[in-house]
């Protein structure tokens, strides 16, 4: 069908070029892994990415280490597995994650007890140091448009029950599958289900509910979309969701290798409350500033960076 021009000489030339390219890329990859590097992994939403940029700025400012950020990992579970495999050294995780099937846990909704279990359990089974919290919680919240909340007088999640079979709900990609705090468990606790559930990238749920493409969504409480679209969250009256306090988590081996990191990581403990975190998320998601710029500005305000 097509006449090959050049024949054998062209073929040899192509083979040679491809071998050179492969060889070159191998050499370049080897060069990259030479220096002392800390890898911070983040989930696929803005909040942990801003915090990762904060740590990158602090670590690179105060030590000779370089920091690489691996963003957009599919879930906290992927991040934890990444840290276990020594592909990531640091991350931001939420205490409620402890119920997601890592090790035996005692079922409790008590904030202190959940934190303790996270700190003990992840150290014992995963050799990860789970530091004390930053000062904010980012949990799930059922969210509706303000008009809908007013029309049906919705304040608690239970108030959705009589209308749920006509409502479509938008959720993130994993909630339908999560064992202890997912859709199946939700149905057992609250005793109702929705007409249809649409999993999607979490960033899209706010627009989706604001544009009436779905009637209710399961939002993350510190996300900017709540403020941006002026949405109403409903109270978890049956206390279905566990606490989700955010903390820095670092591989114990990494802390042994670089003991100076312990103090640097601790710099942010207790320094970020929920309102502050939501505001930082807002700067990035709504005002479209970069995570790095917002992180550095915040550190300067705290006097942790010049």
């Amino acid at each position, binding site marked *: *069908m097509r006449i090959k021009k050049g024949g054998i000489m062209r073929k040899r030339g192509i083979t040679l070029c491809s071998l050179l390219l492969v060889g070159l890329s191998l050499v370049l990859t080897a060069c990259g892994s030479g220096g002392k590097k800390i890898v911070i992994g983040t989930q696929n939403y803005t909040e942990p990415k801003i915090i990762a940029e904060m740590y990158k700025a602090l670590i690179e400012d105060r030590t000779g280490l370089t920091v690489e950020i691996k963003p957009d990992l*599919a*879930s906290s*579970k*992927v991040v934890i*597995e990444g840290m276990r495999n020594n592909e990531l050294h640091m991350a931001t995780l939420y205490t409620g994650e402890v119920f*997601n099937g890592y090790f035996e846990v005692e079922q409790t909704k008590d904030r202190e007890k959940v934190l303790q279990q996270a700190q003990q359990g992840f150290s014992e089974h995963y050799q990860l140091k789970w530091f004390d919290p930053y000062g904010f919680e980012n949990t799930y919240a059922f969210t509706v448009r303000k008009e809908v909340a007013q029309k049906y007088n919705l304040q608690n999640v239970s108030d959705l029950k009589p209308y749920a079979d006509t409502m479509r709900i*938008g959720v993130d*990609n*994993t909630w*339908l*599958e*999560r064992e202890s705090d997912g859709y199946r468990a939700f149905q057992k606790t609250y005793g109702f289900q929705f007409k249809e559930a*649409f*999993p*999607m*990238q979490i960033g*899209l749920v706010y*627009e*989706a509910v604001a*544009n009436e*493409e779905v009637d209710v969504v399961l939002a993350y409480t510190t996300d900017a979309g709540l403020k941006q679209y002026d949405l109403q969250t409903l109270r978890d009256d049956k206390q279905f969701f566990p606490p989700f306090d955010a903390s820095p988590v670092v591989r114990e081996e990494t802390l042994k290798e670089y003991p100076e990191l312990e103090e640097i990581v601790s710099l942010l403990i207790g320094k970020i409350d929920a309102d502050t975190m939501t505001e930082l998320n807002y700067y990035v998601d709504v005002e479209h500033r970069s995570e790095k710029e917002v992180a550095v500005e915040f550190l300067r305000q705290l006097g942790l960076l010049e």
Partner: protein
Amino acid sequence: MKALDLFGGSYADFLRERYPDILRATAEHLGISGISVAAGCIVAIPIGIVLARHPIPWLQSVIFSIANIFQTIPSLALLAILIPIFGIGTKPAVFALFLYSLLPILRNTLAGLQSVDKSVLESARGMGYSAAQQLWHIQLPLAFPYMMSGIRMTTVYVISWTTVATLIGAGGLGDLIFTGIGVNKNELIFTGAAAAILLALLVDFILGNLEKWVMRKTGTTKSDTTISY
């Protein structure tokens, strides 16, 4: 069965427990793929026929360039770009995949029609066939295998690309794959991927048999065509 012990001996249980979800995802997946390719055929085939009958070189290259651009945009990017217009869910997914399917179907339709031996058409004209009759009785049957190969290839691609539609809320087998990644359940990832592969193979098989049936009905055999692969 030993093979099903892959995921800790419970894959059979997993399938038994989750088959409604798996079937639902497969049905959604088939729906999105099927409608996109069907729409692609409805638009691309007539355009191909028109271009074959009235060859205008500059128009042909403009149309091909546009279709080619749609093919080159990464699928997820195209889905995201369409959200402000179509919202989220199946509508932008179907439209994006429809745009993808245009080029292969158009190109194969045109090539198939153009490859019909001119002398065959000449003798048909000599025998009193009108242009429309030439098209219907000679060109389309002879071009059919070529068109079908375009449709089959496109369908397989579209079934594969539909897996990312879950990120914009369109559902489909991508649900199983992405959720599986997020909750670290390999059986979900495997099932989603395997179902998509099986779906593509099955559809390809059916279309292949459809092709043979049509060729039998119109009395053409492979040797009648002047197209060589």
